[in-house]
């Protein structure tokens, strides 16, 4: 039995050991991501996007970039420890921060104290409202995607009395608040709103109450599992209400949980939708991502890919310190795969979104509308 324990301990230590030190001629790109825990799906996409971007940037710039990925789980203190560990090896020109807003909020004071740029794909609105000069957000914040969400639901789908189901987490409450503001701006007031715990296993009561309140459509701002559960249960209840969901629904893994027929009339907002692209750079990215990781890419992977791409371009242009990296990211535009990025002075780099819709006969989404700077561009 002692031998069994010893074997387990050795195995555990070998799995948790720090990554091998990188060579001196490599440019280490620190990537903090929630690889384990309830955001592992998004964290995994973040990791994959960073690794692929580092590989591609190495060829493009003839500089060896190496993504050094550290697991932050989902606790703010673990993210802080990961950043401090990174800083122990010397201050890098920048760090790719975790997607989780509460972790990013915990990291910002350290970044400001150290003068360290943090590139993030977290959508939490507050991140770029705190006056930090060190945060650079490569995923459209709630102010962008929820504007597209509200506009599509009211103008394109024709919802006049929507109901909103949102997550009770910080992510859910932030999105719900911006969504309601945008609906009100369009002259629409939700007839029903309810916050749902991510742990809840039956959401039929909330759906039924929304229908009873006279809702003519459902607006969702939920994580992947609850999004699929609402769509499944709304279908089973036979409500036939149009649904415009949050970005979780653009993920191919979410669609895979449902029968295609359940997806009829379902659309979703997202920063981008690489798996739904049929040509151009988006399709090329999706193909190389599938070949590299044997899985479908999502908007988070692509946003991280673009963030690392901009980091690498800045480095190749001579920004090899935190101060020069911050200055470069603040002033220069960057043409990524998902969109063009430029800071609005607060660190918001991404100003575009897409709406994808499902046809009810397959799991494949198609891009229905593209949104930029507050208006449709196609």
């Amino acid at each position, binding site marked *: 039995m002692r031998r069994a324990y010893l074997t387990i301990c050795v195995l555990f230590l070998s799995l948790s050991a720090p990554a091998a030190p990188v060579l001196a001629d490599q440019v280490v790109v620190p990537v903090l991501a929630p690889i384990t825990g*309830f*955001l592992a799906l998004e964290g995994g996409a973040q990791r994959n996007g960073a690794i692929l971007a580092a590989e591609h940037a190495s060829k493009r710039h003839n500089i060896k970039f190496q993504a050094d990925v550290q697991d932050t789980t989902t606790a703010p203190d673990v993210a802080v420890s990961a950043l401090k560990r990174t800083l122990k090896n010397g201050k890098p020109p920048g760090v790719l921060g975790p997607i989780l807003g509460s972790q990013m909020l915990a990291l910002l004071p350290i970044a400001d104290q150290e003068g360290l740029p943090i590139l993030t794909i977290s959508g939490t609105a507050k991140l770029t409202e705190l006056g930090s000069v060190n945060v650079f957000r490569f995923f459209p914040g709630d102010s962008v995607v929820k504007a597209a969400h509200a506009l599509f639901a009211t103008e394109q789908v024709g919802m006049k009395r929507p109901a909103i189901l949102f997550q009770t987490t910080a992510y859910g409450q932030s999105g719900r608040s911006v969504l309601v503001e945008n609906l009100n701006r369009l002259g629409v007031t939700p007839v029903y709103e309810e916050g749902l715990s991510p742990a809840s296993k*039956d959401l039929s*009561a909330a759906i039924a109450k929304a229908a009873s309140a006279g809702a003519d459509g459902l607006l969702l701002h939920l994580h992947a599992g609850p999004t699929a559960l609402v769509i499944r249960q709304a279908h089973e209840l036979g409500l036939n209400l149009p649904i415009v969901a949050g970005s979780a629904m653009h993920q191919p*893994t*979410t669609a895979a*949980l449902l029968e295609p027929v359940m997806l009829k009339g379902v659309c979703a907002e997202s920063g981008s939708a690489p798996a739904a692209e049929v040509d151009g750079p988006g399709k090329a990215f999706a193909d190389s991502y599938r070949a590299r990781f044997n899985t479908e890419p999502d908007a988070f992977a692509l946003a991280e890919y673009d963030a690392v791409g901009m980091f690498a371009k800045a480095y190749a242009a001579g920004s090899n310190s935190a101060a020069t990296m911050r200055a470069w990211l603040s002033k220069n535009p960057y043409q990524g795969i998902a969109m063009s990025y430029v800071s609005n002075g607060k660190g918001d780099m991404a100003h575009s979104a897409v709406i994808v819709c499902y046809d009810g006969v397959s799991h494949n989404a198609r891009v229905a509308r593209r949104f930029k700077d507050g208006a449709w561009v196609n």
Partner: protein
Amino acid sequence: MDVLSFQLLLNGLVLGSGYGVLALGFALTLRAAGAVNFAHGDVATMAAYGGVVAAAFGATGVMAITAAAFLGGVLGLIVAIIAWAPLHRRPVEATFIAAIALGIVAQNSLTVGFGGAPRALPAIVDGGWHIAGVYLSAHGALSLVVAIAAFIGVATLLLRTRTGLRLRAAAEDPEIAAAHGLPVIGLAIFAFLLAGALAGLAGAILSNQHYVTPTVGAIYILKAYIAATAAGWGRILPTALVAVGIALFETIGAALVSQAAAEGALYLAFLALLAFRPEGLAGDIQGRRV
């Protein structure tokens, strides 16, 4: 009763069938081995992923669920061998920590192996029925049947068979049972195996309509623990029934107030029960609890 109420009742029962089978296994190890198996939820999760893998290789819903139950039994055995057998004579906290540690290893292994995306098991049988405005999936109906069969099976084993009598005797006083020649350790390990199979079955039932993620076991174990405490420590069938009640409370309570308020009310009710009837609804059979 209107159509909506009946629909919610039905949904609660279907969800409760999964919770009930899960709690049944948790209470079984509690009763037969005196062990609080905090890895029970993670056994259910890992077994459900086994079903997902089986389905990826072409297994039907029935085959995937059978595979999950089988894998659950094996995992229950592993938990017993690693986290219970070498530690059961140590302070009781040692087995808790060992089980929790195994659960965390399981969660992280699943995350590394499968990623964090939710997965769904195939239904036992596809399709369903809309009857007078109420929907019942074939999977949901069969989940109820499977749960009732599991309740009856475990009750029969414990109350009507010699093995059940031995299990109960070994649990109630291991030293006297051992003095009478009963293989106390072997019986406890058998209880872990059976409980693991029940966890696998529950994980598979729940993972069709409610999906499975690497960390969902933490939610499952919380429900099972509350059910075991509320029912009465070591009361097997009452624990399963209370677990069904928790599912009904969550579903119907969400309709009466809101989902968040119903969840809060559930825990308040639990606290009130602990305050006014700490031995649980059916009484504390073990005379000790954690």
